């Protein structure tokens, strides 16, 4: 498997990732996020409630982001590799109410109980007003077996 193919498998099966953004002060801000990778679009997606919208504000000011997939226990694949993706992000916020719903197919594969929460939308209305963050991969670093002491394998666009 080449780097991109292997990274795709990791991204598709990882339960959590670390999304890093550059804040207006030039510091990195890192957030644990549920990654939703679309093989069809070859893009990585996140959806964030407007309750936690600071990251979207940062991305609109600086779209350069990094996403790390690591932790053997969070990645349900027969093989393990730590993957870091550098990419350019775009924020979709035209339809906060249900513009993110198309991601549900990807979401429910990782959190099967999410459907039950959506049915309770009335209980947490602001949580379900959501932004979509799309990341177009630019460079991927891949450490076999998660061993970062060795140079990573690279894929660049």
């Amino acid at each position, binding site marked *: 498997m080449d780097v991109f193919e292997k990274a795709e498998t990791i991204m598709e099966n990882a339960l959590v990732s670390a999304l*890093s953004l550059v804040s207006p002060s030039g510091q990195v801000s890192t957030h*644990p996020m549920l990654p939703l990778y679309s093989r069809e679009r070859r893009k990585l997606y996140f959806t964030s409630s407007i309750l936690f919208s600071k990251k979207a504000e940062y991305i609109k000011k600086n779209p350069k982001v990094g996403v790390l997939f690591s932790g053997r226990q969070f990645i349900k694949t027969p093989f393990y590799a730590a993957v870091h993706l550098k990419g350019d992000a775009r924020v979709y916020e035209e339809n906060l109410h249900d513009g993110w719903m198309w991601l549900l197919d990807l979401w429910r594969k990782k959190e099967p109980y999410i459907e039950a929460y959506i049915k309770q*939308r009335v209980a947490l209305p602001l949580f379900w007003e959501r932004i979509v963050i799309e990341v177009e991969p630019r460079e991927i670093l891949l450490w076999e077996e998660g061993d970062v002491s060795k140079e990573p394998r690279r894929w660049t666009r």
Partner: protein
Amino acid sequence: MSVEVERFSDTVVSFVDDDGYPTSIPVKLRPTEEGFTTDWPAYLRPKKHATLLFNHITPLQTGGYTDRRYLMVRAVVDTAGDRPLFKPVKSYGWDEQKTPFFQYCEQKIGQARSYLAKLSSSLGKPVKPRLSTLALLFRATRFPFLTATAAPVLIGVGSASYLGYFDPVLFMLTLIGASLIHLGLNMTNDYFDHKMGADEKNITPTPFSGGSRIIQYGLLTPSQVALMSSVLYIAGAFLGIYLAFLRGLVPIITIMAVGILISVAYTAPPFKLAYRGLGEAAVGIGFGPVIVLGSHYVQAQTFSVHSLLASIPIGIFITLILYVNEIPDALYDRQAGKNTLVSRLSRNQVVSLYKALLAAAYAVIVLSAAAGYAPLTTLIALATIPTAVKTVRMVNQTYGNPYLMIPALASNIKVATLTGLLHALGFFIWALGSMLL
């Protein structure tokens, strides 16, 4: 800064790379006196600033995860021998065990509202959160609380049926009218609690306390809430006036006026009964004698000792719904100058009074039947005593923790409404039996 590193299953170091993109690597961080250090790959040059992420989730066998916590630490980077030394400057995080998810969401409402304001300004049109009309009405009016109106109406009608009066159409009209006024009350309460700042200060609302949050979430404006509340009151009053013309102008108008006055005065200035420690008494009178005697009069065109006695237990039970729901709100109520009974008493006094009022409510049911003012069948209301005892224990065990209290709050509502409904059923069973025999 001390971090219990072992509480986190994953640690990550991030920095801005030479190309301006953030780069992260998974590491094993070790605490030192000055901060944290780690083995660092030779091919990477440490930067002056870094961000550390301590992250933990527990994956579930069934899919998904639980037990979330994370800590983000901004650090300046020094060197300790051939290793980087991360000296913390600032940190930020969340631990689901310390701050339940619902509370965390409530704490972030300001961020959501500020985001929506900026988005509205950049798009040149207002962007607001939405709910479907039905869901919005359900939430805004706190519809499920209508059981607190249904029980006293049924008791009033039941006590009339025990005396031989029952008209199903009048019963439905009474129920609808009283419900409309109750929904109006709920929205008035939200409007004035917003005006006084009590609901804004409350960051631990539960499904049973802290108001509907409809204004705080920006789902409706305060003036929309005031308008909807007025419409509900007018519709309720219209039905009341119609019943008054049909069944007795002065008594029904008087009772309805008292009911509406109490419900508005509950939070509205200048009375603000709830803010002066009189809210519980007002609710007891409103949901007890006012609704029960009114419903009874519509059927029987007379008042009776039977209905007056029957109104006391339900008045107490509905008061206890409010009383126990005040426990999680007490801290914020105090901050907003809302001197509810619970906010002025100690924990022991609150629980003791809770037990005493429960006992009094059940005692009135027994004594009314013993004195012949209620049929023996009303004693089926005592069937809820075991649940009431269990609820007192739950309240005592979870006292003060808003989220752990949710099952206790739900159980308390169940006891109140079920006892009321059984009490009413006792009257109806006897009436039906008398009719058949």
